[in-house]
């Protein structure tokens, strides 16, 4: 009964809470809703309502977009594949993302070579990003603290950083390949050199803008330099550091795809290039979706960690 969840009901004498018995007009023979106990919305229902309100609009948008895409690309001579064509032609890529991975006695074995599932390519790319980005985070925060706390170091290094940060990631690749001679370390270096600039510059701003009030507290307490570093400087500049780390992780993910497209072998960038060369445009589209989702997840993970650390100090 639909009225069971409503708190108010229309009665012949006006809107009343449904557990209130309306005075029955004598001359009308209309049936009046029997008094029903009000059922409060449970916490679970309220949570589901809130989720639905957040998820429904993007879901509707997605369906509309897919519909328009399908309508535009469903002509027999369309050059661009429609969503249904993506599903049928790339079925193998979509349903077997872990091709080439075998679980043998609790050990994960990955087949060598390029003919592996898309998640294996993504894992390869993520591994390179993880190494390059971690190195960039450590070095970037250290350099940021240095130029943030020393005016001399700032004057000496900031012009250099400002110039180098505008160099596009791929422009480093020839130098990187020449220096490392191997594809994998060269790519890792590319990630490092891409991610480090926003981390350095944001950390430096965070350290430079520590409020005078906090510095005065440190001076009055006569904190030593290490104490100042750990108790005041780091916690005060954590929000800025994570702004840099967040920009850095996004740029790393941009750079890894470009780097792998150029130098080939393995990784999600290579997968895209390979599918284009094999005229498998539908595979490219599947890869794009994966890249977008992984990039989104990386950004949210760094933002989440930053919020947790800032709250706990």
């Amino acid at each position, binding site marked *: 009964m639909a009225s069971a969840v409503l708190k108010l009901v229309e009665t012949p004498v006006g809107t009343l809470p449904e557990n209130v018995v309306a005075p029955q007009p004598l001359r009308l023979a209309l049936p009046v809703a029997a008094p029903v106990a009000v059922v409060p919305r449970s916490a679970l229902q309220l949570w589901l309502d809130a989720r639905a309100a957040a998820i429904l609009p993007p879901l509707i948008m997605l369906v509309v977009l897919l519909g328009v895409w399908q309508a535009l690309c469903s002509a027999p001579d369309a050059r661009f594949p429609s969503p249904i064509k993506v599903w049928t032609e790339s079925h193998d890529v979509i349903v077997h993302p872990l091709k080439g991975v075998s679980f043998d006695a609790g050990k994960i074995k990955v087949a060598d070579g390029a003919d592996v599932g898309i998640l294996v390519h993504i894992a390869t790319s993520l591994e390179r990003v993880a190494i390059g980005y971690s190195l960039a985070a450590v070095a970037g925060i250290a350099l940021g603290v240095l130029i943030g706390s020393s005016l001399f170091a700032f004057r000496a290094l900031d012009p250099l950083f400002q110039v180098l940060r505008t160099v596009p990631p791929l422009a480093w690749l020839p130098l990187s390949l020449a220096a490392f001679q191997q594809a994998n370390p060269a790519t890792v270096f590319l990630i490092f050199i891409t991610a480090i600039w926003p981390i350095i510059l944001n950390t430096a701003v965070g350290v430079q803008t520590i409020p005078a*009030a*906090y510095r*005065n*507290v440190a*001076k*009055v*307490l*006569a*904190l030593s330099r290490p*104490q100042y570093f750990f*108790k*005041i400087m780091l*916690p*005060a500049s*954590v929000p800025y550091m994570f702004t840099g780390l967040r920009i850095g992780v996004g740029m790393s993910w941009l750079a890894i795809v470009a780097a792998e497209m150029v130098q080939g072998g393995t990784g999600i960038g290579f997968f895209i290039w390979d599918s284009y060369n094999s005229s498998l445009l539908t595979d490219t589209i599947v890869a794009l979706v994966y890249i977008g989702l992984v990039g989104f997840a990386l950004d949210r993970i760094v933002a989440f960690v930053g919020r947790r650390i*800032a709250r*706990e*100090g």
Partner: protein
Amino acid sequence: MKQRSYLALEGIGVTFATRNGPFVALQNIDLNVERGELVALIGHSGCGKSTLLNVIAGLTKASTGVIFLDGQVVDAPGPDRAVVFQDHSLLPWLTVAENVALAVDKVFAATLNRAARRDLVMHNLELVHMAGNAAKRPAELSGGMKQRVGIARAIAVKPRLLLMDEPFGALDALTRANLQDMVMELQASQGSTVVMITHDVDEAVLLADRVVMMTNGPAATIGEDLAVKLARPRHRLEIADTSGYVGARTDVLRFLYERFSHPGEKAA
């Protein structure tokens, strides 16, 4: 030879270098404060009273003169001169207890064990009636509560001198009265020596043993030094219409508004 006071400022002057040449902020300041005394510094805004407090704290270097505290020259900041800042300056990422513990752990690292330091933190939070909020963060507290924690952090390190920079300037009148009473209680029980900046005439006369009035800057100096001869403990209602209170209040007002009226008002 004359015995030096507990806190003695001798010929203090501060000159700042600015784009338009040197700016003399303070000049020829001689001030003596005895042990256990509460001295209020009063003056119009911009007269350099905060600069003077920062010089005593060691946060600003004096261009001339010397400061003695208990016979020793002081010229750098240190926890023996604790400061209660106007904006409380609590660290937002630490809880109330951790803010006080930062000071206690630094000062008593060598002399007290961990448990004793923890007890000292809680004892001082009890003194300012904030023990129940020890686990909260500053953002969860009202302005008055934050300043109570600021005071607890300052007194917890048992400073030789307590410096307060307009500690209640940002608070509403009722909260301010409440905290003033608390400062009087604390000073009576701890025997602290206090130098306090204020621009509130009633606050100065109610709390202070002496009201030190500063002339207007630039080149501000001490214009008058008035002893407030009111018995302690003082209760704001009981002393409000005594001749001692009214007389002191009138003297301060006369200094501030007749002899050294605010530079902006004089021009108008």
